[in-house]
């Protein structure tokens, strides 16, 4: 064994001491892991049986990326129903809001990062698009590109990376003739060791930001500049596979995620919505297929999709929803099938 320095000996001792410090009771639960693991395994089997997994995932992503960027409903067009769809879904009518509405979306993407998903985070309160590869759990090497578009009039500043290092600005080639720069820890490395950040302005002066990692390409900078050049800064409402009606006006979407592939890595996509309705939190999940775990809440299956509703603090629901509870809310959900051409942007309807 090589000789240890004094510093190393100190670190061995200190880190051992830190690991041994008093801890709260463990919340690790093997039974819960088995339950959730079973769900992943089952759904993975279903996905394998139903599609040519990876090819299917890519095909879905491409189909969505060419949908109309903004409009009343994804259903307005083709009527090209998926042959596996059991019945023609009833499309919601009337005005509605789409929680996944953002100020732009991806255009050109590398072929290994072709699955586009969207997330509304409470903090910051804006929607991000994320393009990712096909790799699924347990790999952490999935290539990803996050797109963030700053509100008009907002100029992003430099600060610190999560690890505490200072963000440095390194000028990049112009994007569509507009100012662009890399954000990095080291001025000599614009790629920031593969954890790469690019900011640039649209012709209207709006700022966009790309954050990419695990791209596995010999020329990250050229690739990201091309992605940035293809970003469409026009407003974009993402069609979703469900709508919900009859909510009180006070209902607020706290979180919304359309993940491709699904976060658990066993399906082409999954959708999660978290709404604050009165004093209750309503979690809605929608997945392709008919499987769901016992802890998903109250569930139903229609048109090849399964929706589950979980209500936290049901006592806080407004009177109009309190009587039916989770089942009543589930009744207000319309599932639009597996074909993205039938999905809608009129998602949350009062």
């Amino acid at each position, binding site marked *: 064994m090589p000789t240890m320095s004094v510093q190393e000996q100190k670190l061995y001792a*200190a*880190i051992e001491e830190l690991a041994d410090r008093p801890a709260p009771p*463990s*919340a*690790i639960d093997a039974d819960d*892991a088995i339950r959730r693991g079973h769900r*992943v395994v089952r759904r993975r089997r279903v996905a394998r049986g139903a599609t040519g997994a990876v090819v299917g995932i890519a095909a879905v992503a491409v189909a969505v990326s060419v949908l109309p960027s903004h409009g009343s409903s994804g259903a307005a067009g083709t009527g090209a129903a998926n042959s596996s769809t059991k019945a023609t879904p009833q499309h919601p009518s009337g005005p509605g809001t789409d929680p996944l509405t953002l100020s732009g979306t991806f255009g050109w993407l590398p072929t290994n990062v072709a699955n586009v998903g969207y997330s509304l985070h409470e903090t910051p309160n804006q929607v991000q698009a994320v393009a990712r590869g096909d790799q699924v759990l*347990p790999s952490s090497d999935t290539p*990803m590109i996050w797109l963030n578009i700053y509100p008009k009039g907002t100029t992003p500043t430099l600060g610190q990376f999560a*690890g505490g290092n200072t963000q440095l600005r390194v000028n990049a080639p112009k994007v569509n003739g507009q100012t662009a720069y890399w954000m990095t820890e080291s001025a000599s490395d614009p790629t920031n060791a593969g954890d790469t950040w690019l900011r640039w302005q649209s012709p209207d002066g709006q700022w966009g930001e790309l954050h990419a990692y695990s791209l596995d390409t010999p020329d990250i900078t050229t690739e990201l500049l091309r992605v940035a050049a293809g970003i469409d800064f026009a407003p974009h409402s993402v069609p979703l596979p469900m709508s919900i009606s009859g909510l009180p006006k006070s209902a607020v979407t706290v979180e919304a995620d359309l993940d491709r592939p699904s976060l658990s890595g066993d399906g082409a996509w999954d959708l999660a919505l978290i709404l604050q309705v009165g004093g209750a939190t309503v979690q809605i999940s929608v997945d392709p297929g008919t499987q769901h775990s016992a802890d998903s809440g109250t569930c139903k299956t229609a048109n090849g999709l399964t929706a589950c509703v979980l209500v936290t603090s049901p006592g806080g629901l407004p009177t109009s929803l309190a009587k039916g509870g989770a089942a009543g809310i589930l009744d207000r959900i319309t599932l639009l099938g597996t074909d993205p051409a039938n999905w809608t942007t009129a998602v949350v309807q009062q």
Partner: protein
Amino acid sequence: MTELRRDAAFTEYVAAKGPWLRKVAYLLCQDWHRADDLVQNSIIKLYVQWPQAERIGNLDGYARRVVVNTFLAEQRSSWWRRVVLHEPEYAGHADAGIAHVETSLDLADALGALPARQRATVVLRYFCDLSVEETATALSCSAGTVKSQTARGLDALRRVLDGRAAESAAS
């Protein structure tokens, strides 16, 4: 029956190694609640991969790698900020008046300030006792990267480690 055997073996493994994985996770994230979430997410992945994991011969190494990779993946996305609702817990222990706990907290702060991969390198080298080559394999990087990350990490932690030694000498 096969599934029952699998579940029993998995449960037994988690009971035996969960505390150790929890310590690894805690050193990576410096928060016991987040460490629990990290391990919980990791053991779900471990369960899904259990038949393959059992066959590879180094189950502990595999499980540790899943924890580290899950941590690094979470650091790169903003996912954990959404799913972890706990406050940082440094101030939460009433017994923090004990001198060595204070020192541990200093080290926790210093570790937390390291970039994620550098922190993972330090934890794998000095808590998990992995060699440079083993650490390189676990992190899918070169031995040279491990050496440079270790050197940077040691340098960054030097102030805390030196302060710790000075306190010991004074007491």
